[in-house]
């Protein structure tokens, strides 16, 4: 159990005035009795928890999805989601972790293993028999939207292959790709790189590892700490040198900024330097825009595009910069989802006992998309797991806003999800 200190999130329980605003917004307690609500499992139960108890008194906190809507709406600043995460970690510390949760926590490892023979891995995983087995033996819901490994190589493979085409510049930015981009969706990274280069930035992709969020969500704090330590060691130097670290996976950047430091009580100088130098990519692009530095040579994109800001993105508390920037694209008809959560909540919706809850939670979002009409071709969302859930729940392809931006710059094919060959504009901005 992480040591208690006056900085500890556990102490924010004192802010709670029992007003029930969190419970009235919680998308999970709205659909199941198994979860009594954030107020109950967070600040209320926290008064009954203590290091060194004969046994943990908790059960229902396991059903918290970690979506953080409660934090968002709380009028007094209780860090409910973090309280819950800590309580879950305590359960893990006492009762151990099922193999399934161990596996789901090791996104990077799974990604890497599959990347050696992606076509085989895809076939092996994505057939009905394997999925059935995985559900019966491991508890991974057979219908939950697991990703496919990239069969055109990893993101690093692409970087290596196109090394000579990459822009060199005195303006540099560090890109944090995250496991999903690396092994499953390298095209997200490609879109990010071309957008950044279009604006005159050289993109540096240093050695980095999984941010550790799936481990934190599943309560494996010790391992998560070592992951974070490793990233801090590899990246803090860039931040110290004034290079921004931008990421397209909004959950990864949130983890580097806040989740890891808060949950692990990890506040030393290098970790804090990294925190202060990390940006969600649209957060950083918006800053450039406000400084008059962002290229706005967008081609019209005549699309009807429902956009869902994932809960992890809202947890950054930076507003919705992806929406604000996409609004600059001519003819793009954006519809903002106010749905609370798509349901997948990281690894939550993959667990058999939570799969249906996740689908019920996401129903609000799926219905919103449906209500936008039949002429919608894509949905947009900053988080990879949310996109997979959206595709699962709406049968519509989903795109990261960076892909939309890249397409608007004329550099990216939204349908094929690839950069358009030979289309890198080296001219100076404006």
């Amino acid at each position, binding site marked *: 159990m992480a*040591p208690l200190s006056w900085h500890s999130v556990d102490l924010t329980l004192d802010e709670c005035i*029992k007003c029930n605003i969190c419970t009235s917004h919680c998308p999970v307690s709205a659909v199941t*009795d198994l979860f009594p609500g954030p107020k109950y499992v967070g600040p209320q139960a926290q*008064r009954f928890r203590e290091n060194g108890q004969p046994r943990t*008194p908790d059960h229902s906190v396991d059903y918290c999805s970690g979506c953080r809507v409660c934090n968002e709406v709380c009028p007094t600043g209780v860090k409910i989601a973090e309280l819950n995460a800590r309580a879950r970690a305590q359960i893990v510390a006492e009762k151990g972790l099922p193999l399934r949760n161990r596996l789901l926590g090791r996104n990077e490892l799974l990604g890497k293993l599959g990347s050696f023979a992606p076509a085989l891995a895809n076939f092996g995983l994505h057939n009905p028999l394997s999925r059935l087995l995985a559900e019966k033996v491991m508890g991974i819901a057979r219908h939950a939207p697991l990703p496919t490994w990239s069969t055109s190589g990893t993101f690093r493979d692409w970087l290596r292959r196109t090394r000579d085409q990459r822009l060199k510049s005195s303006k540099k930015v560090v890109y944090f790709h995250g496991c999903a981009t690396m092994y499953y969706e390298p095209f997200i990274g490609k879109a990010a790189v071309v957008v950044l280069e279009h604006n005159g930035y050289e993109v540096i992709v240093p050695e980095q590892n999984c941010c550790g969020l799936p481990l934190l969500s599943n309560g494996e704090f010790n391992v998560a700490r070592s992951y974070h330590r490793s990233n801090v060691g590899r990246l803090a130097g860039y931040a110290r040198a004034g290079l921004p670290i931008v990421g397209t996976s909004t959950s990864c950047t949130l983890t580097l900024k806040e989740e890891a430091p808060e949950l692990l009580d990890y506040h030393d100088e290098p970790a804090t330097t990294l925190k202060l130098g990390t940006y969600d990519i649209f957060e950083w692009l918006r800053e450039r825009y406000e400084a008059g530095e962002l290229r706005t040579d967008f081609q019209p994109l005549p699309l009807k595009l429902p956009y869902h800001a994932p809960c992890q993105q809202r947890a950054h508390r930076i507003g919705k910069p992806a929406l604000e920037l996409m609004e600059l694209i001519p003819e793009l008809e954006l519809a903002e989802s106010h749905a609370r959560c798509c349901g997948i909540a990281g690894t939550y919706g993959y667990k058999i006992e939570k799969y249906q809850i996740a689908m019920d939670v996401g129903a609000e979002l799926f219905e919103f998309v449906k209500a936008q009409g039949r002429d919608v071709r894509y949905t947009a969302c900053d988080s990879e797991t949310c996109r997979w859930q959206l595709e699962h729940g709406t049968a519509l392809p989903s795109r990261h806003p960076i892909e939309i931006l890249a397409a608007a710059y004329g550099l990216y094919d939204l349908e094929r999800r690839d950069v358009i060959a030979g289309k890198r504009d080296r001219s100076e901005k404006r």
Partner: protein
Amino acid sequence: MKRYSTDVLVIGGGSTGTGVAWDAALRGLRVILIEKRDLTHGTTGRYHGLLHSGGRYAVKDPQSAIECIEENRILRRTHTHCIEDTGGFFVVTPEDEGDYPDRFKAACARVGIPCEEIPLKEAFRREPLLNPRISRVFEVPDASADSFLATHATAQAARQAGAQILVYHEVVDLLTEGGDGDRRVVGARVRDVVRGEEVCIDAAITVNAGGAWAGKIAAMAGIPVNVIPGKGVMVAVNHRLVNTVINRCKMPSDGDILVPVHTVAIIGTTDERVADPEMLTIEPWEVELMLQEGDKLVPGLSRSRILRAWAGVRPLYQEGYTGESRNATRALALLDHRQRDGVFGFLTITGGKWTTFRLMAEKTVDKVCEQLGTNRPCLTATTPVPGAEQGYYWLGHRLHEVEEARLQGDLICECELVTRTMIEQAAANNPTVTLDDLRRDVRLGMGPCQGGFCTFRAVGVLHELRLRTQEEAQTTGDANGEPPWNVAYMQSPRQAFQAKPAALGLNHSPLDNPNLLLRDFLQERWRGLRPVLWGRQLKQERLDELIYLTIMNVDHLPNDGAASPLTAFWQFDTAPNAKEADQ
């Protein structure tokens, strides 16, 4: 008028009085206990929550220290479920250098208190919020205790052994016979507060266990007993900043103990001589002092969320003493009025501390037996009270039960995890005249919202219980063989849920004025909030005001003129000579 006859009449329903009743009943004596309000209404219900190891007294008062450690061991066996085995630290802060720590260690060894100096690293690992400048830490077997549950369990044990416990029965007068040289107390005239009737109780021996009121009671027989009321103020913080009892390692003084009790931590206490044991005010300097001293143990405590402040009165007794209450002895005093004042059939037991209540009772009943001319051994040290088989209390106990039995939908006081059935059972089985009585039984309103949500709910639940019982008055008999509720489990959500449903007996005290219940309890909570109201707790109170004023309009309900035993408290608050907020 009703008349009872008994061997022993015990006046006072605190820890000592119920202890005497228990002890006497176990020895086969007929006992009746009367208490003017609810059990633990006096000092027992207002104390710090500490089961002393005796370390605090080892240097200054070794006799008390020995009594403490012996009783500590005994109570852990007899009242196990009322005790949380927190352990205790004696810590040396920068202000406490000098030779006291070594004297302390030696004194503990001398009187037989297990005391081990532990490495600082270990101490801070267990209690990370402790003052980092602490230089030495000694571990002793302090523990925290729930005096409400303990007193009720003791009373239950007494009942099971044949005693009669009558609460809301106030002594009007002691009955005496004979003249000079031959006076004898033969019982008491008592008023049933709830029904307004008088009752006469004839007793061979009357034991005055009236605590801070003992002097008033003795005076009814013309006997001067000068109890020194030593007021102590305590301040609770919203959640447990520590899980071990933390004592300052120095000569005992104000604000030097921080005790984790249930879901809060309590910093205390002061010691001021006061005139009236009932009408107590909390002075700003007392609160300031507690916070200041608390900061020395856990830096930043004064900036954390302060939940509540209250005062209790120690019944100190020292024959012929006129000085400061801080320096009066804490030793128990058993006054044999036959020897002291020439009055037969009357004993006063006073002084002492909660930790030694059983010993006080033992000595008292030994004396009772002596005066009755019978030789019966004390059995309390080896007789666990009902509920002790549950083992030590642990902090997560209620949450664990609510989680296992999926009782979330039944929660009425969510802060302290009090369910509807717990409230119904306690109200039906323990005479409940005010919500404060209920609070003591099940911890209603003792959490962060201080009754904001649960006062209304509890009133509604009790109102419904009354209606339901009036309807079901004709249908009796067990429903499904469910076990009857037992007060030993009054803090258990699961037991309350599984027990036979509650029913208000026809002889029960009337609960038909919900508006009064509501108003009284809101005011009672306010009394303890007002001295410490700022920051987060003030925000909470403002929400509570929104609930009771904006939403409920409770200040404009009918029957304003009604009063209850609790009403006396807030009438005191608003009396002309009470401190006004403005002029």
